[in-house]
């Protein structure tokens, strides 16, 4: 192919958005084919939908309930405040059409290497699954008596029923992963023994260590940490020494989980105290705060903690007015009006102000602030080459689906490490990323309202840990799924019959394939009408006709100056005659006045 031809093709090959994935797809750290399964649901192909989901996610029922769904944040419809309800659609497909007999339990032939995974939360479980699929022998050490990490001991059961976690995790057993429950590394087995015994180690222990504010009275009986509270309730169904009046400190999702759990344990008054001035500013999801308010939680915005009082147990909490959360430079730097205080009578104070990592057991691994493991961001390798760390234990707190992606990265790295492969090449887009797609909501779109799932009535949910969200009915799911804009570019293909015939995917693919093949079928460039509709609709203003025209020129040059198309012999003759004197004339203007001229030779 000549340089002129290639020059017109290259920008299209580089920047055509015809194959650009939709926003939801790249926002998902696991790159779930959201558009694919949502549209399968819209078409009533529920079985295919759950199969599509399962290609990327092993716990669709769980994620359908608790995923913080970055896909919805990036949904095009969110620009007008009506993001698709993607997580609930996933839940619909999973709850009703998932069949464990369809699960993919295939794996590569067994390998001799043994891997230890410490922690069975979403990060550890994903790492274990990926490594097992590669054929490694995998053992998971879990300090709790249950699998799931924070899914089980953090998230309350009214959001995620326990039998769902257990059922979805059964895939690990079926894949032949050994799980040692209630086995704490560092206590029941030394970390060094694990490092010495196994060929590779993945640390995925999460962040289960609570913090307390450094205030007077923080160590009084009844002043506790949210993670401990939620864990005990998750494992035992109750909390020893639970009081009637509860105060939760914090504005994030863990604070909300604690407050709503307290409601369900029968507390008479549940206070939620946070620095942020309103629901919008709080870290917790808006809907979570709204549901808590419905359940009677008393919200105290713009309050900080001065002290906790009581003789031999918590009796009061003294609050002080918060007048600033972040300073003008954007740093967390709360300021208070010390003169403005409030006393709240309370039997318990639950601190939900963030978590740290309990990394003391792994003495040989380098840790940073908050006990978090120091890893190479790209490979998740620690200072010990065969030890990788992922999930909440390494960085800022992650969504479950982000933790899974981290687990996948750690598994990939370990696999490369064990096979002496380059650890760093071809590792783009292993997490959520921004697509290069640019689309607009069509002008004629009616912006249909987001369909909301059904909810358990307030009275029932305040009395029990029964699941609050009841999900979509089939009718609702189809209605919601049908709202999907099916974001893609391909505007030119939709407008052009020629592209539909010869380049049905997108010009990028056609030009790329042509460049690789080094030749094109003449019928393709000679089927372009050169009408410019593609350029008109192309967000990048690509002039495909110029590319096709250069192909034509090259073909003519290689064909003795003639078009390679047989049909064009007619045009050759036409042009020959068109330039012959027989049919040409040129006349200067007439001098003098104009006279009406009798029609000559007219008529058809």
């Amino acid at each position, binding site marked *: 192919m000549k340089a002129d031809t290639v020059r017109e093709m290259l920008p299209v090959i580089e920047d055509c958005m015809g194959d650009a994935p939709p926003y939801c797809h790249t926002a998902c750290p696991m790159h779930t084919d959201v558009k694919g399964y949502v549209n399968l649901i819209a078409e009533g192909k529920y079985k295919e939908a759950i199969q599509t989901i399962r290609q990327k996610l092993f716990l669709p029922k769980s994620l359908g309930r608790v995923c913080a769904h970055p896909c919805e944040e990036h949904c095009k419809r969110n620009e007008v405040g009506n993001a698709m309800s993607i997580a609930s659609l996933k839940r619909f497909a999973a709850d009703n059409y998932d069949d464990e007999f369809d699960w993919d339990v295939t794996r590569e032939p067994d390998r001799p290497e043994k891997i230890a995974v410490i922690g069975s939360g979403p990060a550890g479980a994903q790492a274990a699954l990926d490594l097992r699929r590669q054929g490694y022998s995998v053992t998971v050490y879990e300090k709790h008596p249950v699998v799931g990490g924070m899914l089980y001991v953090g998230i309350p059961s009214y959001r995620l029923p326990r039998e769902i976690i257990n059922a979805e995790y059964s895939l690990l057993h079926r894949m032949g992963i050994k799980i040692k429950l209630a086995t704490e590394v560092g206590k029941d087995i030394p970390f060094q023994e694990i490092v010495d015994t196994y060929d590779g180690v993945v640390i995925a222990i999460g962040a289960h260590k609570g913090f307390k504010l450094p205030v007077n009275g923080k160590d009084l009986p009844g002043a506790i940490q949210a993670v401990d509270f939620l864990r005990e309730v998750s494992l035992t169904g109750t909390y020893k020494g639970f009081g009637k009046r509860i105060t939760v400190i914090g504005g994030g999702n863990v604070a909300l989980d604690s407050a709503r759990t307290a409601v369900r344990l029968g507390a008479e008054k549940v206070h939620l105290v946070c620095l942020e001035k309103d629901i919008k500013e709080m870290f917790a999801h808006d809907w979570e705060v709204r549901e808590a308010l419905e359940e009677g939680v008393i919200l105290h915005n713009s309050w900080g903690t001065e002290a906790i009082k009581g003789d031999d147990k918590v009796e009061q909490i003294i609050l002080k007015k918060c007048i600033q959360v972040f300073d003008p430079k954007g740093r967390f730097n709360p300021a208070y009006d010390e003169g403005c205080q409030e006393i709240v009578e309370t039997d318990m104070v639950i601190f939900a102000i963030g978590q740290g990592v309990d990394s003391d057991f792994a003495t040989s691994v380098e840790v940073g602030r908050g006990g978090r493991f120091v890893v190479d961001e790209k490979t998740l390798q620690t200072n010990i080459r065969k030890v990788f760390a992922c999930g909440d234990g390494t960085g800022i707190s992650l969504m479950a689906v982000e933790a899974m992606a981290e687990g996948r990265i750690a598994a990939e790295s370990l696999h490369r490490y064990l096979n002496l492969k380059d650890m760093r090449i071809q590792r783009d887009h292993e997490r959520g990323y921004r697509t290069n797609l640019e689309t607009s909501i069509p002008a004629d779109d009616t912006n249909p309202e987001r369909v909301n799932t059904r909810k358990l009535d307030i009275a029932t949910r305040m009395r029990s840990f029964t699941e609050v969200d009841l999900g979509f009915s089939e009718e609702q799911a189809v209605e919601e799924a049908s709202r999907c804009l099916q974001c893609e570019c391909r505007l030119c293909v939709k407008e052009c019959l020629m592209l539909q015939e010869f380049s049905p995917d997108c010009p990028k693919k056609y030009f790329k394939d042509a460049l690789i093949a080094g030749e094109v079928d003449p019928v393709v460039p000679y089927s372009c009408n050169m009408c410019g*509709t593609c350029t008109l609709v192309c967000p990048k203003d690509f002039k495909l006709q110029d590319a096709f025209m250069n192909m034509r020129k090259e073909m003519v040059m290689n064909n003795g100056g003639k078009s390679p198309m047989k049909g*064009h012999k007619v045009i050759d003759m036409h*042009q020959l*005659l068109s330039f012959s004197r*027989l049919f040409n*004339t*040129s006349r200067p203007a007439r001098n003098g006045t104009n006279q009406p001229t009798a029609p*000559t030779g007219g008529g*058809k």
Partner: protein
Amino acid sequence: MSTTKRVFFPGCSLPSYNPMAVQKTLVHLQNHLPGTGAILKCCGKPTKALGQIDQFKKRYAGVQSEIDRLDAEEVIVACQSCFLTLSEYSPKQKVRSLWTILPEIGLPEEVRGIGKDSDITFAIHDSCSTRYRPDIHEGIRWIMDELGYKYEEPAHTKMTTLCCGFGGMVLPANPDLAQRIMKNRTSEVQSDYMVTYCAACRMSMMMGGKQSLHILDLVFGGPWTSKTPFPGAGSTVESWKNRRKAKKSIEKVLA
């Protein structure tokens, strides 16, 4: 000193289709714009479209030498492909479309309102080659309003117009695809009647299943009603005969 300020350049498809319209247009231009000569020649666009760039340059040089010989400062074109080709390759000349000239000089007095009692609504098909020339689109609407015919704007119109199917010499290369593109164009039009301002487009609309006219058929013929017989495809021989007629009448008008 040359008396030729400008030339009328009717192109090839129009003379092959309706030589009488060529002649009448020339007379009309002459009456209102003294100093109008004429050149009947192909601009070479088909050669260029095939990719025969060297051949095209040679042929276009012939066009340019005729313009230069007549010393014309301005070229009035009736074909949108000519408009683009001449605009690009004759940078010294002012290239203007007949469809923007007519609103300036007016239509012949006798044809104003000629279509006001017609029972036909013509769907306008804009040429894709001049999709970015709103002055041309407006000129065509002005002509329709002056004539008094009712007209329809298709979903894709003016800048967003669709190809008639003939562009890029696709018809001889891939007749099946061209036919589908023609059908695609006409299928979004309500009316059974269409008006174009390119003779090749007219042919395509006809092949797409519509009764179709060139806008000069409306200016220099009619009134057209549903009872009027509409022109058909015309044979190749006939079109070359028409071309000869156009040549003869230009030579007669400018004798």
